[in-house]
């Protein structure tokens, strides 16, 4: 049985239209990946890490500059029609379809591009609208839907054709808690019921990746930095101490990284409430007192300080030396 997805030294470079428009950008730099059938696999990385480029290549929309990519055992470059029969993709913030069509008509239209018989398609659409709590919206025009409702419709569009492999590119981007939860629950349920189906999910929401995925690849600057189960990834920082520190606005943070015992640190300034949030990965807990002293010497007040359990963000900070935001 071939893996659901396999890439070998996959590289993608984007060249500017004209030389004066800037330098070439390497979106993927030699990515090796193997995802088995039945996995709910996560790709975690900040914006611009190369997640979407990878999905575009796997979904046959983009050619690699070098290297190889296979989906269900088929080469995405030369056997793209075989790949297309087996996949679908949903992106966050998608505005696909036509606003003057109703929800049901829109979904039906997309099923026709996959050769589904109308009767089967309409039956499945009704079932899924019900599952997503959109049954009462089925005859409403798409342009009247809220963002969350529209994204639920997009997710239905992806799953209604019953693909073997689905690519979900930040499917809960910008959604409220309830809409996100509905979508996440559906994804877990779908892949759990059908062991021959595979999900490749990209996200920059740590908790989403942690909650949903059996395995996660951490990607940055087009490179896979680590790939394992969430538990194993978090073990990478198990020996370290995670410290979260909230202060009033801290102007100078440069000295913090040179404090003995600080392995990595990131910060977020929040001008709205004049706060700075600092997150440390410490090799030695003794560094805490030096950190506090340094913050106070910098003219800021300590608002909160706590040790935290390792999260995927800590893993990312340890691997990359920066946070997601």
């Amino acid at each position: 049985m071939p893996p659901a997805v396999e890439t070998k030294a996959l590289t993608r470079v984007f060249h500017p239209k004209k030389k004066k428009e800037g330098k070439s950008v390497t979106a993927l730099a030699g990515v090796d990946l193997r995802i088995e059938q039945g996995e709910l696999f996560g790709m975690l990385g900040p914006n611009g890490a190369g997640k979407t480029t990878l999905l575009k290549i796997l979904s046959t929309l983009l050619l690699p500059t070098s290297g190889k990519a296979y989906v269900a055992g088929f080469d995405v470059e030369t056997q793209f029609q075989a790949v297309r029969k087996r996949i679908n993709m949903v992106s966050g913030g998608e505005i696909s379809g036509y606003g003057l069509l109703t929800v049901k008509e829109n979904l039906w239209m997309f099923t026709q591009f996959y050769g589904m018989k109308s009767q089967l398609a309409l039956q499945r659409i009704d079932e899924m609208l019900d599952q997503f709590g959109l049954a009462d919206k089925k005859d409403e025009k798409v342009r009247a839907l809220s963002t969350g409702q529209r994204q639920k419709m997009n997710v239905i569009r992806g799953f209604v054709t019953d693909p073997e492999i689905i690519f979900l590119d930040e499917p809960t981007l910008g959604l409220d808690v309830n809409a996100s939860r509905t979508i996440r629950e559906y994804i877990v349920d779908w892949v759990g019921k059908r062991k021959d189906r595979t999900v490749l999910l990209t996200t920059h929401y740590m908790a989403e990746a942690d909650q949903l995925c059996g395995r996660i690849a951490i990607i940055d600057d087009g490179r896979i930095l680590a790939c394992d189960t969430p538990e194993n990834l978090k073990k990478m920082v198990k020996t370290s101490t995670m410290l979260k520190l909230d202060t009033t606005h801290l102007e100078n943070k440069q000295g913090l990284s040179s404090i003995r015992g600080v392995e990595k640190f990131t910060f977020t300034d929040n001008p709205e409430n004049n706060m700075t949030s600092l997150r440390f990965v410490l090799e030695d807990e003794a560094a805490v007192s030096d950190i506090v002293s340094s913050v106070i010497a910098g003219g800021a007040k300590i608002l909160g300080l706590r040790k935290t359990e390792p999260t995927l963000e800590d893993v990312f900070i340890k691997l990359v030396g920066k946070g997601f935001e």
Partner: protein
Amino acid sequence: MSDTWLMTNLRAVKGRAYPRVIGASREPSWIFFEVALPLLTVAAYAYIYKFMDAPAAFIGFVILGGAMTAFWLNVLWGMASQLYWEKETGNLQLYMMAPISRMSLLAGMAVGGLIGTTMRAAATMIIGIGVFSITLDLSEPLMLVVVFMVTMIALYGMGMMFASLYLLLGREAWHMSNLMTEPIYLASGFYFPVKALGAYAAVGASVIPITLGLDALRQLFYPATSGEYGFLPIEVELLILAGLCVMFLILSKLSLDYMEKLGKRTGRLTLRWQ
């Protein structure tokens, strides 16, 4: 070519045609913008011809030309520019990812556009004939249907070819459509027999299928004027139109394949975020 492949692509044609057909009933403003407004232009020409004591057939020529403008505008704005708009909304990448021939998508756009536009053109014709009390002398209805269908296949085939080329032009496509509106009204003889432009100009304009199609339809509606105002014999025009059908369908397939390959290579043509 398996039955499944054929059925999948026929379903894709149906699916893509649907929004265009249903759109007409959802947005009735087209009655004003696409029937009433063109009729004003038609009326202006009709009164000029009346004032000049031109033959009565000329008013029929103008009404037929006015009705056919709907098809030309649909080809420019609804076919040629469409893939670019689809790219901007994010639909194009979903279409490109589907396991279907890209030609079936374009065919769906064409079929849907043709059905919707035929309703508009028919409304213009019926109102124009009623308002100006036109009498038609139609003796070969079957030939009329054949000429109309062949003209439409050639015309929408050209639109399918333009769809890929416009995608390469990006935002400039807007200007291209503007550039090809009024000049083609003139060159194709929408409001007068194209023969009036002279043989060389008429031959040049014949690459736009609506030129010969319109001329042939006028000859069929007014056979008595055929010798004096018809550009070429109907059979010859039909043959040339059939040739244009083949040519534009082949060119549209080639340009679509080229556009898709280029899009996958550069990452710019088909993807909204690029």
